[in-house]
């Protein structure tokens, strides 16, 4: 088990002496697959480097199985690592690359080569053992890097954007394969990525980082359906969540979100504390939680279609205020069968209980977060 406690990392000698990582707490269970996800500069790679021991935290504690490892050298942490650039040793053959960590542990050549061969079979590169890294394709190099990381049977596998140099289709295959190998070997794995689809698809839990702090650490579906704050909500999802500026009000005993373009009545089971009334909020709802409805439906909103994009699997419809005077703009997803063209007037409806309210006075905290 890996525990990070109040980790702070400051790079000295930099002009902006801001903190790359600012009070980060994280727990990773044995055998778990965890992704560190965030925009560039959020501190995810710095965190991984500290887990590897290539960087020392300014303060805080890193524990592996309850033991403090802050000052333990990378080689003594029993980790395997795959770098974004793969960092294969260019002058060694694939066999020597994979056997390198073993040879450095004074394992006899014969045995090291045998283990290298076994590992290479798992990754299906045993026919490439005599090649040099420069004679391999990108995907093959990636496999060699994985094999080198796994050849010493590490307890922890660290992956630093391992798939960012692969093309989209290859990414899917490699992703599945990494997941499969990780399950079979049961190795605790931490992946750093800026690709949310990759993070959500591959991991048991995802830690979303921003500004050197963890915003939310949860299984993928929970992140997606119950974001804790505005950052997580707007960062995840493609097309992104619709966010409309509004205000919470009490009207005739009902709680209502009042926005420029529409008013939305909160259902009874989503009633908020009275203290929240009058607050400035962002009303958020994902494009696939909005439906086009009939003119008689309850809580309908009249809008005008501005643009229809064909995504292949469906249509992305951009609707605006019917009079064109307000800034309200909402994106929604419909099936291919819906016959809609730009200029049409439509009624839309939010699927019940799929909306979020983010408190703009409290760093965008989600008021409807489950406890």
């Amino acid at each position: 088990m890996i525990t990070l406690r109040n980790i702070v990392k400051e790079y000295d000698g930099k002009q902006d002496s801001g903190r790359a990582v600012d009070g980060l707490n994280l727990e990773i269970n044995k055998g778990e697959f965890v992704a560190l996800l965030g925009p560039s500069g959020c501190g995810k790679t710095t965190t991984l480097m500290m887990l590897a021991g290539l960087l020392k935290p300014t303060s805080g504690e890193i524990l592996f199985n309850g033991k403090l490892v802050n000052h333990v050298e990378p080689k003594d942490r029993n980790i395997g690592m795959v770098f974004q650039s793969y960092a294969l040793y260019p002058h060694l053959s694939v066999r020597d690359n994979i056997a390198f960590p073993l040879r450095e542990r004074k394992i006899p050549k014969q045995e090291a080569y045998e283990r290298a061969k076994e590992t290479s079979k798992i990754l299906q590169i045993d026919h490439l053992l005599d090649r040099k890294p420069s004679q391999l394709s990108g995907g093959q190099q990636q496999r060699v890097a994985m094999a080198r990381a796994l050849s010493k049977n590490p307890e922890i596998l660290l992956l630093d954007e391992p798939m960012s140099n692969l093309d989209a289709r290859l990414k899917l295959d490699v992703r599945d394969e990494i997941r499969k190998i990780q399950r079979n070997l049961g190795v605790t794995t931490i992946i750093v990525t800026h690709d949310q689809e990759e993070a959500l698809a591959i991991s048991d839990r995802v830690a979303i980082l921003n500004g050197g702090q963890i915003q939310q650490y949860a299984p993928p579906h929970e992140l997606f359906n119950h974001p804790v704050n505005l950052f997580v909500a707007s960062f995840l999802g493609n097309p992104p969540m619709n966010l409309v500026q509004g205000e919470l009000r009490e009207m005739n005993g009902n709680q209502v979100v009042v926005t420029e373009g529409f008013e939305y009545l909160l259902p009874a089971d989503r009633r908020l504390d009275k203290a929240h009334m009058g607050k400035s909020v962002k009303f958020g709802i994902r494009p696939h939680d909005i439906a086009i409805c009939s003119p008689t439906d309850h809580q309908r909103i009249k809008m005008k279609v501005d643009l229809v994009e064909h995504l292949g699997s469906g249509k992305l419809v951009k609707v605006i205020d019917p009079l064109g005077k307000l800034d309200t703009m909402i994106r929604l997803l419909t099936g291919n069968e819906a016959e809609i063209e730009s200029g049409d007037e439509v009624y839309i409806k939010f699927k019940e209980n799929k909306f979020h309210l983010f408190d703009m006075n409290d760093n965008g905290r989600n008021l409807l977060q489950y406890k």
Partner: protein
Amino acid sequence: MDHTTVQPIYKKPFKKKMYPYFFIMPFAALVLVFFVLPAIATIAMSFTDLNASMKPKFVGLQNFTRVFSDYNLPAILWNTAIFSILSLSVSLLFALIISIATQYFLKGKITAVIYRVLWLIPSIIPAVVYVTFWKYIFDPTEGGLINRILLQLGVESDPVSWFSKAAMGIVILATVVSTISGGMILLSAAINSIPEDLYKAARVDGASEKSVIMKIILPTLKWPLMYITISELIGFVSSYFFIMLLTNGGPMRDTTTLSLYAYQQAFNLKYYGYGAAVSLIVVIISFILTLLFLRLFDFDQMIKPSRIED
């Protein structure tokens, strides 16, 4: 203006494919006058008995047979070999040590930069000034730096005549100190081009410093090392300038190398024909050594494209 007037079509005076040659011509002419013609003249001269009287007469291979029967030749060849091999190995070794120390162990530190700049100084200052400095250090009188120190410490009671005792050592020392920086710059640049991730991967893999140097740094330096070896070797085999200024080949012929011998024969004794023959032999030796080292470093490997695109 009349719209129908036909613009006279400008016709280029030469065919298109001629133009590149015009651009090359000025420099090619310089090369011809200052490199090719003198080379041909030297070759021609080596078959004549041209001397101070300036009346050349064709003598066939007589100059060459004279070189090989010259009783000085064994000693001179030996001096040349000692001078070249020692200078080359010491210079390469130090360039390698300094580059690895400053670009790997002290990477990015200001001390590393200062240290490398210090090594550059000997190759920047004019040769005559530089040689005077060495002459002052090893001066055989009490005024010489080393002699003064030794006398003051009481190690020696009389000033030591360094140039008669260790002339070859001093010549090699002075030459090496001024050539190290050339190799150092090339090797440092090559080490600097190694991606940082490789060192990180090596640390994660538990590589020892020895493995990092042997398996990551040295293989990267193969081609720069080849270039430095060949260019410095040719330089040492054909160099005479420092030796001439420091010892002028003495004492006796102890520090006379083949190229200095050629210079002395041609310009001191005015045996131009004979000097040309000796320097032609220097060129042939350099050429053979170059081929030898290209083979040794497996030069074909570098030209062969190894990348397989998918």
